[in-house]
């Protein structure tokens, strides 16, 4: 009756053992063209961190891949030698997902920037993993289409990185996250095989490995080519900026809009401190004295947009907006968005240091969470600026501090962690778009039980039995793939022997 090709007992054999990166270096020096391999210490340091500057590790070796074949060669060499590898796109990640491994290989895709195909008729584009997000839209817009996922980093982040992080953006309230916009991925598995997940058409038969790969933060392999779904450019777009006295008022307006059955393309909120920062950086001219602003954008057929836009304006007024600015043209619209999109970077203007948090709450808990967050910050003597996707409850509190004041950095970290606890208390998530990475692995057990995490590890073990793909990310203490699930009593023998710490 049981026709398993791998008998259960085989899983008891631990598959561990870390090889030496020297072996990989020597092999790749033979197999790759000279320009593809970075071994020089100074140049290696260029890659020691991603957008999360807090953690830095110099990789042992960097492969600057020039084509998919080089990625496969690099992974094969790692697989044969049991050496960890980490994929990296543009390195804009904010959770330390692309943090290198000191004894491993960093595989960089940033030179793979060819858009292979654009087919408006099929609503598809096929791109290399290093292609910049915004370039996909720029290339497809003349044909009447664009790529909907639009993280604020869209001018620099790569599509491969978007796939790995399941990135969001201001418009995913209406259009969904990266996962809805990817139909197929060619990838190299951690065992060095080149395979295709998904198809150009929807509903590929079989397990939805693609859906699992998207958002797996580089722990299941390296994407080498990505087929994305293109979205028809809307006929009409309307954007407004509304100033409110308080975040409570702006939150009430948001609830009213959603409650009326309107699904805006975007609803973004900024609080007073975030506005102050944006003004300091880009002089966006947001309403004077606003305690909060909302950016609301509607898009779609002309008649729908006109009708609902009038309703939105009215609802903002009814909930206390004292100034509403409607973008008259694309230039106005860009100005409104400039303030919002520059907010992270702008915070540097009003505080020497800051931590960007990325928590999610059910949207209806917004007012309560903001209040509790402010109380918390006040108690601990730090400031928190808020910029967020109000429509779907994804908060990005920026915890401001000054590293030169002893203890403030630690306090800021504590506050940042406490904010995550607050999100979980309200039924939310520890991350909405930036990912778990190196940064939040220790929060995972607060959201998931050991059994939940073990179950996720079953997928990991199927893709990566040797545990060499981006080890140490997402999961706090993943067990070795050979262990029986559900029994976690003592350290694994391989751990005791000092062989398996990296897992």
């Amino acid at each position: 009756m049981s026709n398993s090709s791998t008998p259960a007992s085989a899983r008891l054999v631990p598959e561990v053992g870390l090889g030496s990166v020297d072996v990989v270096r020597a092999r790749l020096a033979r197999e790759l063209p000279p320009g593809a391999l970075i071994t020089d210490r100074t140049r290696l340091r260029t890659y020691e961190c991603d957008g999360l500057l807090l953690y830095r590790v110099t990789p042992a070796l960097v492969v600057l891949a020039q084509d998919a074949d080089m990625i496969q060669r690099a992974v094969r060499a790692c697989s044969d030698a049991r050496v960890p590898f980490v994929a990296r796109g543009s390195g804009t990640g904010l959770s330390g997902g692309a943090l290198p491994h000191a004894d491993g290989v960093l595989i960089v895709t940033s030179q793979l920037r060819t858009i292979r195909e654009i087919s408006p008729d099929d609503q598809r584009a096929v791109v290399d993993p290093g292609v910049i997000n915004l370039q996909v839209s720029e290339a497809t817009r003349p044909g009447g289409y664009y790529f909907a996922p639009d993280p604020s980093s869209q001018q620099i982040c790569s599509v491969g990185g978007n796939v790995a992080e399941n990135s969001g953006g201001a418009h995913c309230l209406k259009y969904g996250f990266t996962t809805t916009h990817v139909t197929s991925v060619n990838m190299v598995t951690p065992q060095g095989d080149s395979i295709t997940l998904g198809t150009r058409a929807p509903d590929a038969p079989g397990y939805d490995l693609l859906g699992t790969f998207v958002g797996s933060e580089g722990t299941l392999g390296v994407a080498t080519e990505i087929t994305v779904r293109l979205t028809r450019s809307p006929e009409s777009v309307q954007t407004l900026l509304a100033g409110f006295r308080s975040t409570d008022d702006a939150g009430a307006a948001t609830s009213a809009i959603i409650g009326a059955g309107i699904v805006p393309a975007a609803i973004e909120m900024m609080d007073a401190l975030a506005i102050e920062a944006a003004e300091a950086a880009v002089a966006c001219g947001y309403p004077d004295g606003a305690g909060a602003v909302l950016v609301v954008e509607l898009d779609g057929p002309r008649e729908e947009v006109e009708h609902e836009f009038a309703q939105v304006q009215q609802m903002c007024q009814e909930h206390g907006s004292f100034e509403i600015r409607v973008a008259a043209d694309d230039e106005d619209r860009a100005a409104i968005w400039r303030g919002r999109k520059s907010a992270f970077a702008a915070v540097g203007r009003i505080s020497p240091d800051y931590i960007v948090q990325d928590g999610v709450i059910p949207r209806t808990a917004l007012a309560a969470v903001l209040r509790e967050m402010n109380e918390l910050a006040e108690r601990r003597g730090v400031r928190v600026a808020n910029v967020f996707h109000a429509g779907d409850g994804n908060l990005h509190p920026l915890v401001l501090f000054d590293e030169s004041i002893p203890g403030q950095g630690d306090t800021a970290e504590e506050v940042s962690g406490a904010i995550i606890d607050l999100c979980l208390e309200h039924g939310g998530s520890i991350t909405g778009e930036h990912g778990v990475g190196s940064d939040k692995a220790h929060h995972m057990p607060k959201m998931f039980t050991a059994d939940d995490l073990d179950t996720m590890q079953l997928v990991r073990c199927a893709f990566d039995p040797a545990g060499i793909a981006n080890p140490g990310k997402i999961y706090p203490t993943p067990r070795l793939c050979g262990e029986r699930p559900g029994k976690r009593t003592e350290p694994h023998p391989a751990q005791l022997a000092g062989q398996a710490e990296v897992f």
Partner: protein
Amino acid sequence: MLALTTLSDVDVRDAAESDVVAGLPARLVARPTSPEQVSALMRAAYEDDLVVVPRAAATMLHWAPRPTACDVILDLSAMDRVLEHQAGDLIVSAEAGTPLSRVQEAVRASGQRLAIDEVVPGSTIGGLIATNLSGPRRVAYGTARDLVIGVSTVRADGVMAKSGGKVVKNVAGYDLGKLMVGSHGTLAIVTSAYFRLHPIPEAAVWLRATAPSPRSAQSLVHQAVHSQVVPAAVEIDAHPTGETTISVLLEGTSVGVAARVDRMATALGATTAESPIGDLGLPGTDAQPLLKITSQLSAVTEIAQTAVDLGLHVRGSAGAGVLFAAVPDSVDIVRAVDILRAESTAAGGATVVLRGAPDHLDAWGPVPALDLMRSVKNRFDPQHLLSPGRFVGGL
């Protein structure tokens, strides 16, 4: 004595004559009332090495290939409650055995809906997830795959595990909900799930246009699909004899829809209609074998033409690239599948026999990344105790 039959307080009985899966009689039927009971049952079945096939409303239990064995039917019909509806957050959760219609009822009062069409009446949440059933509105809202935001499952070894959660935006850990969608009960038992909801639009109008054949409907489909009027559905229905119908659904505000209907009707030369042809149902009769053919958008009408030329009745979502085709007795199904499989594969898709595949025909066809799927199955269900043989590659 089987461990399964000694569980206290859990409803386990001998199978009746009607407890069959695709013609295969079961030995026992277990009817749990909670996830804990599902867990206890699965643990016991695992211990006894019993093959388990989950069953919800059994509307389509006979569809996939026959399992290689069936010791226990896990009947989830007693787990049929809507667990949580947060109108303000546009989310709902329900137990696996809950009929979709009951979920819709629960959220309708708040002007909301789970944007999944009830293509087969009686479908339950668990069945929807297991089969990734979809209807016309998938063009606008996607399928169960896109709307599930969290799942609770019980593994083959009885361990309870969840992934995702109750917020729409969430990237913590792997998205195992997607892995469950379309897995036909072969990876784990789904016990409940969270979904995102959508507001019920104020107005919904169907338009209908006809053409002599699928091929000649190409420009109608193209115009509708690529229009900025944003259809929620673009359906095609084509017979070997008779006309091809294109149905287009426009949803939105009353004012907006009225204007958009005018524009779309003029563009297509279409008239308004009560519903699409055949409402939402699948083509053919329940006794006929049924195919699911997927392809890139630009190939849909050409593939529909091939199917019609072969004598099949085709209906489906031209706007998504998903067609269903019914195979009448007079047609050699093996030859038809061969031809359609070659054509759809070349167009980036696949042809699957959903129902009524003869034993010598591979219902699923070749599937990329099968080795990896096999290792996922082996990790989740090493003894192959969950619906073995029903899925791709004999999994």
